[in-house]
C-alpha cells in the first residue's frame, strides 16, 4: 500500500517536497503543524457480539473497525519440558513452571487485517498485520494477561477492518483503533480455581478488562476509570529534508525521504507482576497520571512510495526544449550524466539509496521525547470514553 501509485506529476511532487522541507516549519497541504494528527472521531463498545470493539473515523474519511473475540484454548505442553522434569533435580520443575508462567505463546493472539481491494495474503496487508502484532507481543505483558491457568489460556482474535478505501497509509488508523478495541475488551470472570477446567461467571457485568483499570475504590484512590496499563500504539513518522512530520497523508508520504513506523508502549511500573487467578488486581500503584514512561517496542522502515514516483526532466537535458546545435549528441551525453547524478533545483527526482543513521535516530527520538507526540496521542486516547 505504501507503494501505491500516487497520481502526482513530477512538478507537483517537487513543489510538495519543497514546501514540506521549508524551514523552520514545513508547509503541509492540509495546514497541519508537523506533529499534528488528523482530527478523529472514536467510539468503543459498538458491537455487543464481541469481547471488545472500537471504531475510529479520521477527518479525511478513512474509517476502521476492530473487533476482539476471545476463545478458551488448551495450552500446548511442550514435551521437552516434561522430559526434563522427569529427571531428578529438585528445583528444575519449579523453575520451568515459573518460566512457563512468565511467557505466553505468541500464537495466543491472531490478528487479521482486511483492506478493501487487497487480498488478505497481499504482502502489504501481511506487513501491517505483523507490525501491529509484533508491537502487541513485544513486551510479553499482553500474553501474560491471557493466561487462565496452567492448562488453559485465552486465544484472542483481533479482526481489523478498514472500511473505507485506503486513502492514506492506514497504519496509524489501524493501530489507534486496535488500541481502543483492546482497552475496551473484557473477558468473563473466572470462577474456578487452580488448574481445573475453567468455569466462568455468566454475568457479563462482572467481567474483567483485559487491561485492568482501577475504577473501584479498592485502595481508596481518586481513580475514575483510570486505565492502569495500555496496549501499544504504532505511529507513522517521516522525514523530508530537515523536517520531521507525523501522521503523513498519502500525498505527503509520496515525497518522503524516509518513513518509519515506531511502536511505543507504556511502562508498567512493577515489572514482576504475579499472575495468578486474580488478574483483576492492580499492582501498579506507582503509576501517577501525566507522568508516563514510554518504552520503545519496535521500529520498522516503511518503503516510501517516493522511490516509485516518475522523475522530472531538467531543461538542460530536455531535447524538446533546447535548440538543437551541432554538438547535440555531446550535450545529451552530458545531460544524461546530470540526470543520473545531480539534483537540479525544482526538478523532482525519486530518492535513491537509504537514509542517514542520524535522521532515523532523530525520528525515533522525536517520537519518544517527553511530552512529545506519543505522549500526546496516548493522552488523547485516554480521553475516549471506554463505555
Amino acid at each position, binding site marked *: 500500500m505504501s507503494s501505491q501509485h*500516487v497520481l502526482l506529476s513530477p512538478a507537483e511532487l517537487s513543489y510538495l517536497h519543497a514546501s514540506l522541507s521549508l524551514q523552520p516549519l514545513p508547509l503541509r497541504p492540509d495546514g497541519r503543524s508537523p506533529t499534528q494528527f488528523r482530527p478523529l472521531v472514536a467510539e468503543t463498545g459498538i*458491537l455487543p457480539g464481541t469481547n471488545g470493539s472500537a471504531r475510529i473515523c479520521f477527518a479525511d474519511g478513512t474509517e476502521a473497525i476492530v473487533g476482539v473475540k476471545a476463545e478458551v484454548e488448551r495450552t500446548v505442553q511442550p514435551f521437552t519440558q516434561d522430559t526434563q522434569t522427569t529427571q531428578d533435580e529438585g528445583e528444575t520443575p519449579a523453575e520451568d513452571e515459573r518460566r512457563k508462567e512468565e511467557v505466553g505463546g505468541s500464537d495466543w493472539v491472531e490478528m487479521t487485517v482486511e483492506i478493501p481491494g487487497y487480498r488478505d495474503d*497481499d504482502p502489504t496487508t501481511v506487513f501491517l498485520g505483523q507490525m501491529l502484532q509484533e508491537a502487541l507481543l513485544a513486551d510479553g505483558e499482553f500474553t501474560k494477561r491471557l493466561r487462565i491457568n496452567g492448562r488453559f489460556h485465552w486465544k484472542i482474535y483481533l479482526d481489523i*477492518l478498514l*472500511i473505507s*478505501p485506503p486513502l492514506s497509509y492506514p497504519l496509524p488508523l489501524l493501530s489507534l483503533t486496535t488500541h481502543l478495541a483492546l482497552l475496551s475488551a473484557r473477558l468473563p470472570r473466572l470462577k474456578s480455581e487452580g488448574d481445573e477446567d475453567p468455569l466462568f461467571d455468566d454475568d457479563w457485568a462482572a467481567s474483567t478488562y483485559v487491561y485492568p483499570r482501577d475504577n473501584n475504590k479498592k485502595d481508596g484512590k481518586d481513580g475514575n476509570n483510570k486505565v492502569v496499563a495500555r496496549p501499544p500504539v504504532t505511529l507513522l513518522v517521516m522525514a523530508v529534508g530537515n523536517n520531521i512530520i507525523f501522521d503523513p497523508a498519502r500525498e505527503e508520504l509520496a515525497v518522503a525521504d524516509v518513513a518509519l513506523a515506531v511502536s511505543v508502549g507504556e511502562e508498567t511500573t512493577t515489572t514482576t507482576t504475579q499472575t495468578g487467578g486474580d488478574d483483576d488486581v492492580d499492582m501498579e500503584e506507582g503509576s501517577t497520571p501525566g507522568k508516563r514512561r514510554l518504552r520503545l517496542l519496535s521500529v520498522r522502515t516503511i518503503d516510501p512510495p517516493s522511490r516509485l514516483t516518475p522523475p522530472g526532466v531538467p531543461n538542460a537535458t530536455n531535447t524538446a526544449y533546447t535548440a538543437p546545435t551541432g554538438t547535440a549528441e555531446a550535450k545529451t551525453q552530458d545531460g544524461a550524466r546530470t540526470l543520473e547524478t545531480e539534483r537540479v533545483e525544482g526538478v523532482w527526482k525519486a530518492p535513491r539509496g537509504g537514509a542517514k543513521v542520524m535522521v532515523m535516530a532523530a525520528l525515533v527520538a522525536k517520537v519518544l521525547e517527553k511530552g512529545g507526540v506519543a505522549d500526546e496521542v496516548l493522552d488523547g486516547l485516554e480521553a475516549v470514553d471506554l463505555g
Partner: protein
Amino acid sequence: MPLDTSSYSLALLRVDGRRWNELRRINAQIRTQAAADGSSYLEMGHTKVMCVVTGPSEPFGPARVGRTGAGAGATAGASGGEAGVVVSIVVAGFSSVDRKRRGRGDKRIQELQSTISSALAASLHTHLFPHSTISISLHVLSQDGSLLAALINAATLACVDAGIPMTDYVAACTAGSTSTYAANDESADPLLDLNHQEEQELPGLTVATLGDSDRVAVLVCESRVQVSRLEGMLAVGVDGCKQVRAILDRVVRDKGRKMVQEGTVQKGVGLEDMEVD
C-alpha cells in the same frame, strides 16, 4: 440449537416475540463516511452491515494498479458499453457468535456477491457510464439472519447516496414458514423477516423487489419447502419488501431534508412535495 417451533401455535408469537408479519427494527443511515462517494449503514435486528460505494470511476482505479483481480468480487455488466458493478463482501471474523473466518474465495460469499451485483446492475442505469466501474464494498459487522436482504438494502442506500441514477430502490427481505419441511404441515403460516435461529430451522427465501412494484429482482430459496406453501411465503415476502422500501425511502428523504436545512445542498426543482420545515 433446536428451535421450539411448537410454541408458535399457542400464542402466535415467534421466538423473539414478533407476530408473523412483523419486521424487525430496521435502522439505517446514509452518508456515514466523508471520503466515500456513497456510504450507508444498515441494521436489521442484530444484522449489521456497512456499505461503501466508489465510482463510477475508471475500471482500474489507483487502488488497483498492478493488481489485476486482487480481491475483486463478482462483476456484472460487461465492460465497454456499460459500467461494471463490482461487489466485494467482507464478513468480519467477529460477526457471528463463534468466530469463523471466511476467506474472500469462499464460495458462499462469491454467490452473495454475484447475486447482489446482478440485482443492482439491472436497477442502476449502467449504460450512462460506459467503460467504468461501480465498486461496492460491503462489510458484515454482525450477523443474525437475513444477511442477503440486509446487504442488498445497504447497497441500494449507498448507491442512492453516491447519486448513481437508478430506476428504483431494490428493497429486500426474507420470508419463511412456521413449520419445517418434514412436518408437512398444510396449515403452516408464512413468516416475515427471519432471524438467525429461524433461518437455521425453518424453510425460508430471500426476495427483493424493484420499488413499489411487484416486480421481483432477486429470489433466492435454498431450503426445501412444499410448493403449496411457496406462494404464501412469496406474497408475504413481497409485502415485506414494500415495507422495507418505505423505510429506506424515509431514510433517504430525512437525510435529504436535513442536508437542505443545513444548507449543504440546494433544494432541487420539482421537489414541491418535499416539505422542509
